[in-house]
């Protein structure tokens, strides 16, 4: 059980650290916002408190001094400075490292943590003239908020008759009385009349009982809390007698206590009444008939107004799987209904289909998260990178509410980081260069996300130096990526920066420029069935656009047949389908190209690629797709049309097979393979270059 608690603690702390970072960056822009500062303090306080509970003593110790500093800040004794923010950000990173335990040790960078603690201590010591206070944990009763000072006083008559065996449970009733005393002004009467005579007295039994009058801002729940452990074997009564007190009446507690102590009998209430009426007679009071009843309202804690529930990813995946299976079997149901020609069945199956699609949409929607959290992480990245590289860069975002599948967001993280690094490192110029170019010294990087059709578009826009077409061309020719006389459109040229081994960076920094980054980025995006496009203007800036499908689990495909098997091509890349006759093939004289409205389009004959020999039809179909800004055709036997279906993995054994991205189950129960047309095209190009270079030998 402790392991799962610790895991829960680790997850919660990671979340807290994330919020801490966001709040810190926000406080940097609003250093006097008390709410934000309170938030910072709370986060540190919680981390310090719970970390000790789960064996992360080092985190607790480390956070202690930081919390002290923030306590001073929230009390206005210390102001927020850049140094403090920097230190706290570093501290945050250290705490994050400390959460990782290998064996019994946490990963502590002693040098760093020592430096940070010393810095904080220095900051604090300038306000701490007295000797180090021992930090007392905040004593909070578990119910109502204590920070509220309510003007409303309640007056209670409390009667506490403990059970005889009170002492045998180790209870000290005087501690309970003390607790009451701390809650307000107390008048107490102890009664010994139930004590038996000496000979029959059992010193281990409790005969004493109490009456008390308490004026307090606390409410009944708080009172009952005091007696929580003894409630079941004591007689307890609480009476709110506020309305027996004359309005605006100042109670003289010392006097009342004297009065009560003189009366040993149980008529405590009578004594009280007497006191109040005497006072009423002595002073002429105006009785206010309108007595406002103000309920001590419990303020809502600072939880979000949107209630949410944490669900493990595995449970979600399972749900999506089951829904996927339902979709599949429902397709079979529809088919069977149609073939049986039973009208009742057909209308039922249509209804089932409608509900199943809704269910599928809901299930997939659960996995959707706003991309905003990813965006806000980058603010920190941009800040750090700007510092490191000596550039001044501001990050702006829009479309943070745009939602994407959780897995897509996770896998987008690294590619986005790399693109942003690239923009800052190579795109945005140094402040001096910018001023010389007539630009503001602070560069801008803008992240935007929006939905368009079944896709999400993410743009990374910088106002830096833009891409140099000539430099790219030169580099590409030198690296052998393109031929010297190759004709490429601007967008095709820009896309070359994603080719493996390509980099025009004059200087390889620690951050980027090694030429391994951008092609990995493209691969990652394609792995998500997305695409990358680049546009740029020299001197003005660059825009990188990522197009991603809304979900990975369902694929919008084009269903085709080759031989006796069915295949699915991703619909998003497909532009048109045309016929390929024997004539067309002859005209091309052995090359795999076809003339479409004047343009030459190369194609891949999938039959040949997949070594399918059976049943070749006389007339075949070419599916023309747009891949990396040029058109490629894929030859199949038959095209059936659009088909939306659940994507299934082929499993371990097929991991090395290139060109197939998964499988799907069709309505008739057979398996169709989903083609990775990008990979197929790439491999084909590699093949042809090999062939071409071979023919020169």
């Amino acid at each position, binding site marked *: 059980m402790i392991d799962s608690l610790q895991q829960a603690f680790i997850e919660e702390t990671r979340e807290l650290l994330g919020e801490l970072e966001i709040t810190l960056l926000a406080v940097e822009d609003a250093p006097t916002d008390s709410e934000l500062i309170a938030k910072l303090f709370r986060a540190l306080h919680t981390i310090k408190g719970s970390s000790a509970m789960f064996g992360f003593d080092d985190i607790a110790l480390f956070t202690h001094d930081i919390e002290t500093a923030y306590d001073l800040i929230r009390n206005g004794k210390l102001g927020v400075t850049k140094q403090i923010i920097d230190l706290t950000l570093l501290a945050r990173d250290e705490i994050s490292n400390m959460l990782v335990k290998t064996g019994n040790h946490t990963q502590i960078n002693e040098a760093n943590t020592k430096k940070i603690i010393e810095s904080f201590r220095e900051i604090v010591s300038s306000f701490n003239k007295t000797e180090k206070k021992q930090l007392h944990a905040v004593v909070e009763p578990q119910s109502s908020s204590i920070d509220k000072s309510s003007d409303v006083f309640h007056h209670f008559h409390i009667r506490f008759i403990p059970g005889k065996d009170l002492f045998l449970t180790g209870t000290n009733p005087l501690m309970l009385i003390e607790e009451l005393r701390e809650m307000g002004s107390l008048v107490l009467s102890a009664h010994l009349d139930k004590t038996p005579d000496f000979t029959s007295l059992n010193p281990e039994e409790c005969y004493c009982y109490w009456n008390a009058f308490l004026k307090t801002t606390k409410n009944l729940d708080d009172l009952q809390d005091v007696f929580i452990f003894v409630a079941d074997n004591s007689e307890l009564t609480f009476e709110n007698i506020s309305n027996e007190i004359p309005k605006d009446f100042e109670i003289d507690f010392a006097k009342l206590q004297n009065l009560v102590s003189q009366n040993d009998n149980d008529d405590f209430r009578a004594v009280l009444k007497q006191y109040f009426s005497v006072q009423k007679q002595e002073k002429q009071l105006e009785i206010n008939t309108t007595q406002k009843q103000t309920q001590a309202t419990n303020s809502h804690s600072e939880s979000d107004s949107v209630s949410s529930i944490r669900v493990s990813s595995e449970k979600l995946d399972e749900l999506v799987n089951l829904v996927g299976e339902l979709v599949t079997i429902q397709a079979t149901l529809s088919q069977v209904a149609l073939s049986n020609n039973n009208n009742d069945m057909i209308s039922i199956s249509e209804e089932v289909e409608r509900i199943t699609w809704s269910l599928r949409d809901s299930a997939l929607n659960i996995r959707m998260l706003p991309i905003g959290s990813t965006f806000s992480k980058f603010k920190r990245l941009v800040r750090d990178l700007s510092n490191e590289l000596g550039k001044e860069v501001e990050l702006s975002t829009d479309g943070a509410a745009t939602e994407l599948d959780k897995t897509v967001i996770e896998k987008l993280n690294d590619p986005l980081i790399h693109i942003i690094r690239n923009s800052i490192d190579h795109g945005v110029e140094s402040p001096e260069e910018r001023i010389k170019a007539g630009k503001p010294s602070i560069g801008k990087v803008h992240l935007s996300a929006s939905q368009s059709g079944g896709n999400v578009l993410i743009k990374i826009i910088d106002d830096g130096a833009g891409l140099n077409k000539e430099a790219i061309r030169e580099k590409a020719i030198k690296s052998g990526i393109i031929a010297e006389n190759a004709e490429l459109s601007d967008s095709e040229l820009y896309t070359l920066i994603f080719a493996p081994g390509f980099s025009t960076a004059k200087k390889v920094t620690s951050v980027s420029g090694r030429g391994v980054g951008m092609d990995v980025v493209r691969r990652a995006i394609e792995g998500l069935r997305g695409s990358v496009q680049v546009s740029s203007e020299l001197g003005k800036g660059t825009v990188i656009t990522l197009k991603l499908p809304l979900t990975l689990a369902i694929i919008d495909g084009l269903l085709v047949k080759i031989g006796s098997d069915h295949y699915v091509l991703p619909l998003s890349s497909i532009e048109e389908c045309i016929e390929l006759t024997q004539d067309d093939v002859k005209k091309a004289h052995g090359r795999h190209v076809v003339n479409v409205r004047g343009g030459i389009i190369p194609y891949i004959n999938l039959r040949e690629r997949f070594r399918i020999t059976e049943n070749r039809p006389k007339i075949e179909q070419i599916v023309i797709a747009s891949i990396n800004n040029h058109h490629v055709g894929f030859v199949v036997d038959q095209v059936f049309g659009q088909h939306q279906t659940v994507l299934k993995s*082929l*499993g371990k*054994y*097929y991991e090395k097979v290139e060109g197939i991205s998964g*499988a799907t*189950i069709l309505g008739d129960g*057979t398996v169709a393979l989903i083609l990775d047309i990008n990979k197929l095209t790439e491999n084909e190009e590699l093949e042809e270059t090999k062939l071409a270079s071979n023919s020169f030998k």
Partner: protein
Amino acid sequence: MSNSMVNETKQYLTFKLSDEIFGVDVAQVREILDYVKITKVPQTPDFMCGVINLRGSVVTVVDMNLKFGMKRTERTVNTCIVVVEVKIGDETAVLGALVDSVQEVFEIEPQNIEPAPRIGTKLNTEFIKGMGKRDENFIIILDIDKVFSTEELELVTESSNYKPEQ
């Protein structure tokens, strides 16, 4: 392997591949299916028949005859797919084995199991747990965890240059 690897009495599902009888620990057998349409995955070796739909899951099917170097399994009324579970590292994988026919389940005691001969079978001895004796016949008891290991099955055939059609 000079010793038979079997210490306990177990039950074995037996099946035929060409003329030979093979056995698999019944504990690893999930179910037996009649022949269904198998979708071939391109660029995989011949013995990888492809994948089938098993109640919504995509399951790989291996042609056992081809895997063991014999002629391709002929599709007859007796042809079956034996769905088995194998251990791959920490995980369990489900696979289908395409066989000529399925025989009975036999119980064989360890003393009736002899170690695999070094020569005489065309098989990699790694695949054989032992030779079970039953009446006059030998049953080749397979270690399917080895037969269906990832290294064995994840081979990809090279797409060699193809000639464009004239």
